[in-house]
């Protein structure tokens, strides 16, 4: 039986047209000339000696992943971030889809600009439980159990990187157990892994641009980083 999903659906292919939109709202059309998979790049972030305590964060500020910066102007990287854990007692992959979404990735793009969340925070009391400062520009995070490693990685949180930009990451543990360490149910070796694809871009010619603007040529819109935070500009 054929597999029921398309692993390549949200990657670009040579000859695709794209519109790149930067965080300031400037945009331009490009044509994809070449592509290549990134493979997988692994970064360990918790192990027996370096756990993340309950309620803790791995790093303040977030850690810049500067190796992800394309080194030329005509290049674009599509990055799919995922998390995996290895049970060091058995050496097998842990099924983190079953782990509560209280282990989270906080991300910034461009480096230093936190992403996700809403425009404003709210102070919410539900069932008498007071939660102040919910949401806001640093209030959205990616739960581990939605970006676990298998052969059809989650594309919802894809990052797009151009020359001069790279992301930063930190891990937050909102649970009651340490992440990593020597004991407890989550005492595994934890990794952030980066997969995706790299592309070389070319300019579109006049005829192609005309077709794009007339909507007779399809294109895909790609936002670098995200939308502007409300606090920076009225």
């Amino acid at each position: 039986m054929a597999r029921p999903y398309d692993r390549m659906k949200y990657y670009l292919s040579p000859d695709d047209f794209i519109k790149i939109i930067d965080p300031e709202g400037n945009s331009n059309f490009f044509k994809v000339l070449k592509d290549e998979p990134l493979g997988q790049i692994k970064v360990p972030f918790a192990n027996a000696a370096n756990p993340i305590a309950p309620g803790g964060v791995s790093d303040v500020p977030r850690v810049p992943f500067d190796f992800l910066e394309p080194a030329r102007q005509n290049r674009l990287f599509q990055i799919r971030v995922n998390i995996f854990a290895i049970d060091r007692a058995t050496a097998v992959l842990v099924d983190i889809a079953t782990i509560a979404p209280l282990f989270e990735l906080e991300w910034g793009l461009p480096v230093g600009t936190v992403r996700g969340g809403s425009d404003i925070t709210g102070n919410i009391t539900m069932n008498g439980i007071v939660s102040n400062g919910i949401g806001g520009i640093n209030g959205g995070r990616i739960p581990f159990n939605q970006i676990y490693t298998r052969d059809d990685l989650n594309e919802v949180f894809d990052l797009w990187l151009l020359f001069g930009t790279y992301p930063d990451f930190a891990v937050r543990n909102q649970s009651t157990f340490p992440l990593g360490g020597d004991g407890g149910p989550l005492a595994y070796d934890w990794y952030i892994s980066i997969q995706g694809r790299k592309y070389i871009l070319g300019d579109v010619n006049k005829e192609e641009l005309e077709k794009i603007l007339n909507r007779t040529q399809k294109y895909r819109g790609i936002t670098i980083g995200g939308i502007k935070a409300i606090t920076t500009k009225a």
Partner: protein
Amino acid sequence: MAQPYDRMDAYLFPGEFVRFTSMFGKSQWIHIEADEPLGQIKVPFTNAIVSMARRASRGGVNNPVPPSTFLDADPIPMTMLEPQREDRIYQVRPVVFAYDRTTGLLVNRNIIPPLLDLEWEYPVGSRRGGTDQVADITINGIPNLQRGGNHGRIPVNMIYTRDDPSEVWDLFIFFKSYPAFRVLNGTRGLVGGGAGLELSFDWYLTFQGRKYIFRRATSEEEQKLDNGEIPYRSIPSPGGVPPTLLRRE
């Protein structure tokens, strides 16, 4: 085994045209200019100490089914979900999950009965879901009072959080509006509270989705859209279908 679904299918993309229709029947073409995932925003509603009452037992075979208990007298306004500019939309996917504080694991949705429900208002103060009318139904001798009407609720086991939260109840939220939610417990279990009880986990209401910047379609684009020369998607009406009490079609 990998999953047979497309996680991005119900989200919008920059460059797309979208038609939205307000609850009062007014519609507008818009063009998506930029997008960004919301990540996940969490609101806890029970924990090790604070629980949510279980539904009372029936008093006898001829007694009505007792009503669900609820957390809060009215749905709680989620003010942080209001976009702060006119040219922004949030596509919000409400999701409920339970954390087993004894194992660190996500509670398996297969054990959560669809009697634990989410009730929602959008815009705040305007109850959503349900039908136009209520009726008293007796089936197999069990009387059910006032079924229908605003009794449409979202069972939390249908909006489960893994990497494919259900898009069926997506809300599209515009400037100057935000939704409100409360949880109802129609189960005989105590939700939250001390360890060892049936549904005694730490429960969270969360919001995922995507935020967009848009612009209005130009008159030239509107003409092409009207003529069917440009494809577009319609998004669920912000606020939904008006109740029949307010307006006759």
